[in-house]
């Protein structure tokens, strides 16, 4: 078996590697810090910085290299077997799950992880560290005269009733390129048929597709877009706090709750230091910093679950299903058919 693994590894290594696009890189910590490890993450640096700063302040002997990339790129990077990072963070739960299922994660146990609720960890290899409601974001100005959508069906009706307002002014993730977006869409599809109907309606309106929540929020804030569907809740709240035009809507029929996850790659050489950081991240103090200074809701934040009809996305092997080649192809075909008309 190991023989096969070695062959596979060689093949992966020799194969023309689609190298990852690094969006941003920053080093945290003292100049002379001897212990340095790398975090590969899809989360914005600004949101994560407070936690990292707090950690390196307490541990002057440690430095952290923070590498920002898209969730899909992160997946490819780790799947290729190149061992260059010591902690992998992503909001694409399904991609993370697949990486762990395929054996890329190392096990990590500590008193902190033992204290995590069961739904926030898998196999003591994959750990959730922040929760995210997936929300609808609307432009206040556009919706000044319109009722606030209470459900997807309602939203659907509003759109259909006001075609002029919404033509080319709706936005959502391009699930072809965004792993996060793909996850949101597939989870939506699980919940009800209404998603497909909404998708068709949105498609008929000429919905614009985006790579990321940040872009969508900017467009809504500027008023270019009237609404953005399936936006990451914390980003939306952060923006809404700063700018008056953004209104966050939790649709009452259901609200998917995303879990941001992290794992330590099996081949990491700095797994101990990564583990120490992970412990800090998961500790109460770390969670408080993450939430209050980073704006990422803590897993211990009970108010999230109190959102009406909150539907946490389960951290389990079900997430593998939509990554299946045939299933994915099938889904994408249908999704594209609906939204790209």
């Amino acid at each position, binding site marked *: 078996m190991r023989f096969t693994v070695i062959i596979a590894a060689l093949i992966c290594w020799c194969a023309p590697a689609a190298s990852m696009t690094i969006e941003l890189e920053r080093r945290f910590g003292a100049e002379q810090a001897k212990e340095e490890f790398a975090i590969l993450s899809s989360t914005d640096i600004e949101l994560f910085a407070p936690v990292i700063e707090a950690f390196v302040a307490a541990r002057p002997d440690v430095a952290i290299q923070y590498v920002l990339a898209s969730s899909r790129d992160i997946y490819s990077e780790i799947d290729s077997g190149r061992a260059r990072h010591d902690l992998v963070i992503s909001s694409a739960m399904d991609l993370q799950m697949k990486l762990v299922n395929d054996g890329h994660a190392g096990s990590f146990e500590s008193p902190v992880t033992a204290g995590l609720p069961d739904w926030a960890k898998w196999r003591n290899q994959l750990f959730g560290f922040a929760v995210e409601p997936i929300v609808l974001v609307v432009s206040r100005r556009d919706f000044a005269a319109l009722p606030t959508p209470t459900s997807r069906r309602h939203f659907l009706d509003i759109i259909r009733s006001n075609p002029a307002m919404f033509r080319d002014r709706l936005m959502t993730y391009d699930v072809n390129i965004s792993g996060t977006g793909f996850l949101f869409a597939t989870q939506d599809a699980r919940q009800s048929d209404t998603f497909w109907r909404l998708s068709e309606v949105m498609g008929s309106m000429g919905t614009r597709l985006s790579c990321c929540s940040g872009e969508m929020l900017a467009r809504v804030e500027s008023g270019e877009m009237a609404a953005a569907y399936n936006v990451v809740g914390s980003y939306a709240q952060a923006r809404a706090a700063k700018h008056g035009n953004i209104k966050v809507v939790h649709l009452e029929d259901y609200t998917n709750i995303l879990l941001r996850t992290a794992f330590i790659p099996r081949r990491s050489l700095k797994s101990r230091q990564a583990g120490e950081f992970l412990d800090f991240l998961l500790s109460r103090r770390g969670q408080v910093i993450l939430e209050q200074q980073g704006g990422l809701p803590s897993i211990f934040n009970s108010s999230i679950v109190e959102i009406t009809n909150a539907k946490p996305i389960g951290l389990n092997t079900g997430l593998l*299903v939509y990554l299946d080649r045939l299933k994915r192809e099938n889904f994408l075909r249908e999704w594209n058919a609906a939204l790209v008309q």
Partner: protein
Amino acid sequence: MTRTSPARLSLRNRLLVILAILVAIFSLVLFVSMRTLAGQTVSAAQDGLLKAAAVSILEKVRISDGALFFDLPYDTFTILGSIGEDRIFYRIDANSTFLTGYEDLPISDSYGDERTPAFASIDYLGEILRVAAIEKPVLVEGRSIRIRVLIGQTSNFQAQLLSQLTENLLVIVVSFCLFAGLLAVLTVNSMLNPIRRLADAVGRRGPNDLRRVDHPTPQELAPLMTALNDFIARLNGALKQTEIFIAEAAHHIRTPLATVKSEGELALRKARKPENRAHLRNIVRSVEQANRSATQLLDHAIVLYRMEQPERRTVGVLQCVNDMVSSFAPSAELRDIEITVDSDISAGLELYLDQTLLETALRNLLDNALKYSDAETTISISLNASPDRCRISVRNRPATMIEIDPDLMIKRFSRGANATNVVGSGLGLAIVREVMMALGGTLDIDFEEGGSLCASLSLSRR
């Protein structure tokens, strides 16, 4: 003691050890078999789960416009991995063409059908997977294609379940062991109880009790009991022989002793020279001492005999005392010693006991008192009765005013400090005590104010 008895083997320990071993073996067997059963059950459970998953995947195969469509069931995958957080691996092939899943997952040698999948344990990526393989033929554009589904998961689920079962099993088995152990101890104890009770019963016997042992005992101990009783009988017989021999010997000694004594006395009367007189005196004194010893040996033999075979009858105590006093009176009178009897009980007080024993005790007491008293003194005997006891006290003033240790007086063959010139063998009081033990009473010796010695016999009236 002999060297034949081996290192102390304890029945109890032996039984306990055997039982302990049995319990241990049984527990082990129980544990192993149940764990195996549990393992099989868990395996079966996992297999069942895998089968259900494979079947549900196969169910979602659709054929539309000559193309195969797969709709992997989300919930199946969720459930499959949820229990033990197991990793899931699968592949779907059509005939021998890989369709989707993990391409490097090895194809199964055999595929079962929906009713009986083929199960196997394989090695994949360094882990042991349990896989289920099912195939189903479908018709696509007139061609029959075999859809092959292989689905497997790691054994965390199994391992977890099994470890939990093992834990529980361990608790059960250990509890069983403890309980069985306790039961074993109780059983062994109760089994050995008859032996202990028998030992107690025999142990409680008095020092001279050589009766048959008639304690109710279990069947298994019957041979031991028979042997024991035979042994006791033989011992008894041997003892009796010895006693008879002693009695006879003592009896036969007395007559020649008496002869020597009387000849000696006669010679003394005739002798004039002081040294001859001295020699004769010595001879007579020695003979008297020997005679006393012989008498007391005989008394001792009588007491032993009577202890075993008492001849009990109703005895008038006052009458008995008076008769004894009458028979001592002439000798007492020779030295002007007066014996008085004073009683607070009526002549009618009766005790049910062996009269000879009582007389022996009284005789020895009086003899002792007489021996150790000076001429012209009084020996007073008093009788007192209370509702449950009768007391006979003999008081005299010992010849020398030295403090006498009552216990020393009683120990066989030792003599009081004032015995220097007075002949005696020291057996007297020991015999009285023996008699009192046989009669179930007590002998007390006290010094009273005024210097008199009081020896009391105390008997129960019931």
